[in-house]
């Protein structure tokens, strides 16, 4: 799987950084999503998928292999 983050859609609610802090961060200026890795390790996959599901703005998606 590969994660995609659309920073134009992001509204900086922080659900991703809260749910999967190993995978998502927020930039300092506007709090928009920053992908720390496009391909999360096995230990972070579950949290990353949960974050995609919880994202309020629909800025996150998953590309399956």
């Amino acid at each position, binding site marked *: 799987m590969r994660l995609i983050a659309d920073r134009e859609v992001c*509204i*900086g*609610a922080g659900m991703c950084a809260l749910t999967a802090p190993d995978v998502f961060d927020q930039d300092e200026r506007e*709090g*928009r999503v920053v992908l720390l890795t496009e391909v999360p390790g096995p230990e972070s996959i579950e949290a990353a998928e949960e974050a995609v599901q919880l994202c*309020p703005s629909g800025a996150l998606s998953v590309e399956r292999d």
Partner: protein
Amino acid sequence: MTDTDIPHGIPLDRETPFDPPAAVMALHRGAEMRRMTYYPSGHLGWLVTSHRLARKVLADTRFSSRMGGPAQAPVPMAGLEAYADFEGDFPVTPGMFIEMDPPDHTRLRRKLTGVFTVRRMKQLEPRIEQFVEERLDALAAGPNPVDLVREFALPVPSLMICELLGVPYDQRDRFEADTATIFTMDGGAEAKEAAFGRLYAFITELSVAKRAEPADDLLSDLAADTELDDAEVAGMAMLLLIAGHETTAKMIALGTMALLENRDQWDLLRERPELMAGGVEELLRYLTIIHTGIIRQVKTDFEFEGHQIKAGECVTVSVQTANRDEAHFIEPDQLDVTGDAKGHLTFGHGVHQCLGQQLARIEMRIAFSRLIARFPDLRLAVPADEVPLRTDQNFYGVGELPVTW
């Protein structure tokens, strides 16, 4: 309740302190979405009650945040009658981006999101801990029994938002009472307008002072932003101030009462403090203090879930029923701090999801954790049915919470 019954607004009267009104749960069981008439004009709109559709509506910007204001309300409020014939979109107070759609909403919200990130809020933890400990010290040294709302639940978030914004806490009598008035549904139109006016003047006065003499706070940053005009700065600051203390205060007080009345849950959190982060989510879900729902209006005709929705029709999302939806949560009518409350909609969903949610989470986590640790034997000082419940405010909660130890 059948799926074709048309209620007049959202029922507010409760049978028990922690559960949504039985009447609104009956509407939810009857249909995910139904017609509903609105106050004061009798406008025929919609009510959405399921978790699935609540998420869909809130994530879809075709459901606009621009609407008729007091001309279309899902609950009765004093003074609405004056707007019964009003048509079109109600004027927005500049800066009040919760009443705007993208791109206006986006432009203003992004001025603030950098301040409320998960990391920035985490940096505030030591300060929140200090506020909480100071209030608990005062509690321990003061009279017993005491009103927990006044001495703890309200001061903690109020102190924090004051510090963040740069509002002097010793001037709280200039915003706390007026905020409560604004949120009181039967408070009277004139009283509410007067309260709004005073609050607006207070904030404007402060932002002018911050522009002349900037400090290290959010209001100074907003006042110095050349892309924002004076009215926008005042509106944004006012929004942060009123949204930043009343809501969390209600949750801390009602959450404490819910834990005291479910003593096994209180004890569980006392014995296993690591459960607190999940416990806070569960309290947010279970108590859903936004009991009047979230209202939107559609601007074009379209089909949604088999229903033809027409331009101008309002759609209210009942968050309290969505958070008790058995299709999404396991045993939703139980308060279970070990349960999985993820996906609750208490902070909303979509582009308007609560800006201050990461602050609210930390404030609640620290407040409940320290309260339980320092006062493990805390109990209600009056019978539970004598605790005054406030169903007459936009955010549900207790008016006061007499406790003893």
